[in-house]
């Protein structure tokens, strides 16, 4: 077995997979894209030269792989914020959720849905910071941004998430009452 593959698998495989899973929201796609990450890493590992940390370098490749994937999927564009139909916001459970999320409690399921309402950059920051538990500096390395840009984006992402979470809980409250 290739030694580069082996090292990356042992150290970072589950990080890569989880990062991609939350970005593309589908186990099978995450599996495919994880393979693509290995291919790109193995082809360009000689250019790594201890840039940042190996982990953030690999995750930045994973992010690029996900962006390339989004571009391939035409209708993947985010719902424009101003055109969002707040009155008829549909958070009902019939929307297909990955199995791993569907079995979670109501708040986690809701959060997973609302995460999608954030921009791709905002989602990346939230996933890196809170799901992958990476520092601001590490997140900045993945995105190739300054740390202040990560902080700004994190703040805006949480603000947006809050709006959608509250709108959704109000809507669902209305259903039950």
């Amino acid at each position, binding site marked *: 077995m*290739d030694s580069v593959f082996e090292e990356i698998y042992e150290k970072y495989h589950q990080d890569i997979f*989880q990062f991609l899973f*939350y970005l593309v929201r589908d186990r099978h796609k995450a599996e495919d894209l994880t393979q693509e990450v290995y*291919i790109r890493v193995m082809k360009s590992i000689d250019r790594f030269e201890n840039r940042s940390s190996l982990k953030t370098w690999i995750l930045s490749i994973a992010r690029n792989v996900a*962006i390339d994937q989004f571009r391939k999927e035409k209708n993947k564009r985010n719902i*424009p914020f101003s055109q969002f139909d707040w009155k008829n916001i549909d958070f009902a459970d019939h929307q297909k959720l990955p199995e791993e999320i569907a079995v979670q409690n109501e708040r*986690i399921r809701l959060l997973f849905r609302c995460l999608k309402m954030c921009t791709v*950059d905002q989602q990346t920051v939230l996933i890196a910071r809170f799901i992958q538990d990476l520092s601001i500096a590490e997140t900045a390395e993945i995105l190739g941004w300054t740390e202040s840009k990560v902080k700004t984006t994190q703040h805006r992402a949480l603000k947006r998430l809050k709006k959608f979470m509250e709108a959704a809980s109000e809507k669902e409250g209305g259903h*039950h009452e």
Partner: protein
Amino acid sequence: MSKKQFSEKDLQRLLREMPLIEDQRSKDEVFHMVKKRLQEEMESPRQRRRPILWPVIASIAAMFLIFVLSTSLLFRNDDLAGSNQAELDREQFTMEDELPEIVLEENQSTTQDQLFTNEIKIADAALRTAIYEEDLAGNEFTLTLNVPDEMFQNAIPVSVIVQDIEGRTWLDQYIDVMNGINEEELGLAEYYPLNGTFTLTDAGSVSLNLNSNHTYTMGTAGETMFFKSLDALKYQGIAEVHLFENFEPGIQLHHEDEKLTVYSIRPTQNTGYLLYETDRQVFLTPSPNSYETIGESFQEMKTGIEKNELAPSIPDFVDFKIIHENPDTLSLSFSPTTEFPDDRSFVYMIEAILLTAKEFGFQYVHFNNIGMDHFQDFDFTKPVHVPVAPNRIQLTLQ
């Protein structure tokens, strides 16, 4: 569940509670798949160099369009479906008159926001979106950045007016704009500042030293967008960017063997301008395709590019033809019976034509038989000067 309030801390805690998701495949299984794909790639000849591929596609597209043009579809006189299309286009182009309440709420910045962000308001008093010579006072000039849309499909030029400041170069101010721009407010992707340092070398060129942790050359989308971001320097009269990576000359590209040390920027890129709509506004956006003739670009501007989510900037029912081209001035003649769209779409159309003319090297466009002498600030009785820069935004640097 009744209506709940979530603090940022609640959300952070909740995000940390998201389940750990593991790949259930074994190491051998993953390795087998990766190996298989690597072998497949080695066996099938790959298009390694996009610069070779693109001219081929462009030539095929150009030949196709020449054929289409020769069958006089572009400047046809009959316009059977005109009025129905007019209705459709009116609906399509007048959606930004009102923004829902939520956007207004969003604009009420919190204290924390004010710490981080700069106030950007869309210049909406007039319908014109670009910056024209007459908009600039003697000590003012424009700075333009190409900002990616969220899917990294289009590079959207946005421009600000700044004043000469003694002791500060245009590049100092350009860097201020890169640091200050709030792309999300515009509905675009977070991109600036670039992860590197610009310096002025001599007239007509700058150098850019990318930090060692930059990620611009790790994927096709990122690499294309990086070069498109440099293309915006053409508005500042820059023709070359000398590239460094961690102070070493040259940057290693994704699919190239040799390092690229100098990136050349074409002053005109022979592209048409179409409409890209974000949740906040419509931007006049260059097509990803370059054409030999401006007529071909006009044709594309009538059809739009669905793949890139670029809507037509010239309604299909508008009937005009090119009557004269000299090095400075493009003369168009509109059919006496042609219809025009509503005011806003009309201005988008005029500006798209002007910006496209600029991309083909023209200084002026003469709009003949357009049925009016003046509209907004356009004086159609004489050739109209092309804009200085597209898509004006207002940016208050703190």
